[in-house]
């Protein structure tokens, strides 16, 4: 029973990646960095789904299908998110989220 054959190892790895993504989303100032952190979190969830699929026999094929769907949704999310960031950058000339204060003044 080695590392590559234990479900716990995959899930702990996935949890670590998700926590790193959470930190990046909460702490970075740049909007694109926040989007990259979201991608890291989506990857962590995908890893957990694939790991469950590899260890639970009834879930084998379904897990891969769900992971592929998550990838497609992530691509859609990246497209719209980056378009919004570029549209905001065109108006405010900065990618830093703490300078988007039009609704606070």
């Amino acid at each position: 029973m080695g590392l590559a054959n234990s479900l716990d190892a995959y899930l702990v790895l996935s949890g670590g990646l998700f926590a790193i993504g959470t930190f990046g989303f909460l702490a970075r100032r740049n909007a694109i960095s926040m989007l990259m952190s979201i991608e890291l979190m989506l990857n962590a969830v995908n890893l957990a789904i694939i790991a469950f699929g590899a260890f639970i026999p009834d879930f084998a094929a379904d897990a891969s299908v769900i992971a592929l769907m998550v990838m497609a949704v992530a691509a859609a999310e990246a497209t719209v998110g980056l378009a919004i960031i570029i549209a905001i950058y065109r108006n405010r000339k900065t990618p830093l989220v703490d300078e988007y204060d039009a609704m606070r003044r």
Partner: protein
Amino acid sequence: MRAWLYLIAAGVAGAIITTPALLVLVFAGGSVDDALFAALGTLMLVSALAVVTMRDIIRCGLAMIVSFLALAGIYVIVGAPLVAAAQVIVYIGAISVLILFAIMLTQSKAGPASLVFQTQAAPAAIAAIVLAVLIALGVSATDWGELARRTRLSTDALARVLFDEFVLPFEVVSVLLLAAVIGGVFIAKREEEPD
């Protein structure tokens, strides 16, 4: 002089990645799969940390590509080769390139901002560490029931499930992608100057 620095940095990075693999292989008596898992997992976590901590955002984007590549390797080890191929094509080929383009479109001429993190960075770090510890504890405390390690899922079986049982979600996702493309073009296109 710069070249020597880069060489030393590459050596240190290689040592960080191969050390856990060698530890697993030699001292814990693991198989080659275990060593590969340790190396790729370390590479993925280290490059993900680089993504969220480095100052130059272009380097963050490149580190993100390394992280995605390591994750594709882990998919191969766990026995999902088609998902690994999709990871390389979709994440590295499409999403990373999109993000790199957006970085280049939004970089100001003054270079990277002097402050990388917001003021809540320290609480965010504590929250993230607590989250990781909680997940690890929850995973190790849970009894997952009957587990059976499956070595590899054939692409044939996956395709049968995808286009038989999951046809409707597949079509819905394609409509979602179309909507996202149209929406992205509409939001990002330059507005006409009113005369």
